[in-house]
């Protein structure tokens, strides 16, 4: 149990430390004011972790291509992680990270939920089909080879899937010096901690106080979410895509456009599907945020480069886009079925509670206001593009459609679910912001 907790904390601290250094390179990570775009200490740690975890694993992959073993690159980033914490130590000492007020009750509840999620997650090894078929085997392969060879993953299903999760697992194996599958699984809980902390911070900031507790706990108790952070699906990468998209969404809604772009760019490193969101949101940011165009030109190619190297090194493309294998189908019927799949998913109370009902309700209620908010327009287009792309995949993929949908629609919906929840909270909070503004005037 101690090794499991230590693995999660190690990954969290290490990733956050490196992330702090990377975020120091951008202008708008922390300011000495109380503006909306200022990162609170906890949000700073959480967002640094997402950037750091993605950055380290991506760099480890690139370094491994030139012959640097994973163990050596992990050692190489260790002083950077320490330095990241050291230069930011005053940011956490200036004021308490959590204050003693009504919000403390929410935090106590969140910590309780995190504890029971962790106990369940670390109670079993990785056992779901995807975990055993390719995520866990890739951890073993990386750990033993200490490098990425083009032939490394050809043995396993989905050799084209990216390496955020396997690289973290391989790092844990390397540090422990043994194939401790449960520790590798526990280490992935660092994403859950960072994700839930960021989500809680955002909800506490945006929602009117009387709605915080019902919204927060209903969101965290969503069945599909629980299964991915505590249950069967821990050790698969879909929730990681969801967390990256959510973190970027929080940044964009709090007017940190550059950080949103950087964070989203790591989503495809968790799973290729994140690419759709990155492309759609980048296009919309280019159109609507003139001030962010320069950053877009800098960061997108910078982060797309290793991604492109990975695809070339591995030499595989997604199995779902084999246009040469398309065969005659009743396309309209297939497309309609795909649309209904998501409709059924959104209204599935057992899986999602009333998350999507609330989202659609507030979207309709505040439709005009949404149209005039640039960040929301970007997010709606990105989420819409994501769902639309999945509908296309469900329609054209060579797999048998109904089985394919049944096996994957919940996991794909999870990619956007927490971004949607943040959007919902933001839209609900819009009214309060306007009222506060009117009172101030």
């Amino acid at each position: 149990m101690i090794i499991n907790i230590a693995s999660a904390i190690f990954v969290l601290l290490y990733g956050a430390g490196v992330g702090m250094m990377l975020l120091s390179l951008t202008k708008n990570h922390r300011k000495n004011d109380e503006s909306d775009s200022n990162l609170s200490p906890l949000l700073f740690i959480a967002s640094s972790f997402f950037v750091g975890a993605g950055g380290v694993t991506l760099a480890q992959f690139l370094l491994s291509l030139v012959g640097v073993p994973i163990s050596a690159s992990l050692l190489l980033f260790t002083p950077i992680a320490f330095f990241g914490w050291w230069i930011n130590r005053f940011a956490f000492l200036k004021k308490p990270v959590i204050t003693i007020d009504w919000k403390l009750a929410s935090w106590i509840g969140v910590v309780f939920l995190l504890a029971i999620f962790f106990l369940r997650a670390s109670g079993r090894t990785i056992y779901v089909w995807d975990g055993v078929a390719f995520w866990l085997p890739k951890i073993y392969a990386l750990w033993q080879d200490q490098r990425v060879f083009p032939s490394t993953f050809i043995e396993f299903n989905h050799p084209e899937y990216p390496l955020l999760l396997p690289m973290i697992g391989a790092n844990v194996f390397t540090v422990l010096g043994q194939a401790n599958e449960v520790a590798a699984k526990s280490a992935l809980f660092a994403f859950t901690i960072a994700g839930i902390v960021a989500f809680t911070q955002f909800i506490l900031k945006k929602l009117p106080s009387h709605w915080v507790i019902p919204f927060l706990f209903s969101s965290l108790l969503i069945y599909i979410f629980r299964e991915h952070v505590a249950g069967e699906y821990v050790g698969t990468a879909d929730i990681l895509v969801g967390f990256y998209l959510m973190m970027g969404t929080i940044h964009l809604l709090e007017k940190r456009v550059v950080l949103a772009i950087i964070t989203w760019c790591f989503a495809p490193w968790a799973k290729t599907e994140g690419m759709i969101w990155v492309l759609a949101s980048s296009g919309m940011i280019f159109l609507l945020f003139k001030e962010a165009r320069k950053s877009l030109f800098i960061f997108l190619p910078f982060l797309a480069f290793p991604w492109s190297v990975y695809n070339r090194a591995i030499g595989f493309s997604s199995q779902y886009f084999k246009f040469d294998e398309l065969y005659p189908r009743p396309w309209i019927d297939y497309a309609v079925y795909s649309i209904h799949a998501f409709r059924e998913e959104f209204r599935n109370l057992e899986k999602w509670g009333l998350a999507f009902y609330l989202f659609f309700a507030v979207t309709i209620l505040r439709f005009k206001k949404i149209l005039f908010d640039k960040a929301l327009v970007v997010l709606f287009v990105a989420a819409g593009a994501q769902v639309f792309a999945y509908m296309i995949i469900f329609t054209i993929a060579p797999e048998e459609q109904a089985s394919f949908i049944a096996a994957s629609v919940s996991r794909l919906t999870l990619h956007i679910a927490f971004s949607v929840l943040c959007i919902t909270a933001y839209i609900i909070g819009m009214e309060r912001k306007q009222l506060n503004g009117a009172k101030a005037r």
Partner: protein
Amino acid sequence: VNKLEALLPLLGWFYLSLSGIFLFLFVRKRQALESFVISMILFAWMLLSIAGLKQEILLAEQGKPRWTDSWQSKIHQEIGSMYQTYFEVFHPLVPRGALVHLFETSTLEFHVARMYLYPASVIQAGFEREYTPVYAVVGEADANKLQNGEVLARVNGKILMKLGEK
């Protein structure tokens, strides 16, 4: 008309509730009604979530005996003796790149063996195949079906054999 009728079941309470919300757009005191709608959905959602919380606590309690178990024991609870068989015993005996044939195994065992025997390659095979593998994993009962094999290891009812190339 038939197609329209077929659409009716789709227009269930989900769409009716959405159209109900649309109606609010046209009434006065909209802000109060918006708050009412959001409050009601959140209240209902929270009631649904209480069941989720109970379930999560129950699952955590059920897992209590496993909290202090060793990680090897947790793997054993999931896949039995496969970790010991394939990773601890067979893996060191199979060189990189060797092709190991698994005879008459389940799909789960094939995936687990493929993972634990890496960097060797693993394929599933049946005894009717014509070629002779170099390395093979067979059950105790089937060991005599492979001729001229050298037994490299025998553990948990599985035998790792090295056979002459054809």
